[in-house]
């Protein structure tokens, strides 16, 4: 029998709550989060447990950060960049008991992704304009058109992966401010 399996993520900027609930459901069936995988999670086989998962952001976590969570009942499971996932028995006090603190966390992420997104969108616009200009003024230069198209397509990835999280975090901040 397989010891690990993969679970997709819909992007933590959007589906944090949904992903954490899905992870809890998997744990109830005996599949526990082990680590972050490519655009998702790796789960490992174990005994079924009634647990909750929560995500926190911390750019520079120190030993004391994880110790505090541990003391409060939240076991550190895995980290990916500034993201850390914790697990606790069902009914443990949430890691953010105050809405304002949670909002500040998202606000920091929103700020970070805003600069990425602006940078990516500017380059994206320049590349798109370049492709358009090549097509319009030099329709015979096929190599250049192909090159411009490839550049634009490749650049779409960082653009999407910065702009979408920015929108996601902006929405979260907006919701928590209401």
């Amino acid at each position: 029998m397989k010891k690990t399996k993969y679970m997709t993520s819909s992007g933590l900027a959007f589906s944090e709550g949904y992903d954490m609930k899905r992870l809890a459901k998997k744990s109830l069936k005996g599949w526990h989060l082990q680590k972050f995988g490519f655009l998702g999670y790796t789960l490992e086989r174990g005994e079924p447990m009634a647990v909750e998962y929560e995500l926190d952001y911390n750019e520079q976590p120190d030993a004391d950060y994880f110790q505090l969570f541990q003391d409060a009942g939240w076991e550190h499971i895995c980290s990916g960049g500034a993201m850390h996932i914790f697990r606790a028995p069902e009914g443990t006090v949430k890691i953010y008991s105050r809405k304002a603190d949670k909002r500040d966390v998202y606000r920091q992420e929103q700020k970070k992704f805003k600069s990425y997104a602006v940078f990516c969108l500017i380059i994206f616009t320049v590349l798109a304009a370049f492709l358009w200009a090549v097509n319009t003024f030099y329709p015979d230069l096929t190599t250049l058109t192909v090159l411009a198209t490839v550049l634009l397509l490749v650049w779409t990835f960082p653009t999407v992966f910065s702009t979408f999280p920015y929108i996601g975090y902006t929405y979260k901040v907006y919701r928590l401010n209401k």
Partner: protein
Amino acid sequence: MGRKDSISSGDLTDTHYYILLSLMTPMHGYAVMQKVEDLTEGHVVMGPGSVYTMIQKLLKAGYIKPSEQAAEQRKSYVITNQGIDIFQKELKRRKKMVEHGENALQMKGEQLP
């Protein structure tokens, strides 16, 4: 952060108030959580994420500082003179609020709780 949070604008929130009063004696983050919960009989319960964030903010504001007394391999914190100053102001403000409330009730001829 662009927006002013409550610490820099002067008034302390209930949780900041309880964290500061706990740190009159040096203790680590989890001890603060337990102390506040005990003291308020479960009315103020804080999660580790909130406590960590608030401790960082209070450190940045200069109201608390790391204490030399590390307890059980955990970093401890203690209130600073500046923190005591702010706490005294806050206590005065809260006392005034209670006084105003009591006066209002008495004027209406109602009993004090």
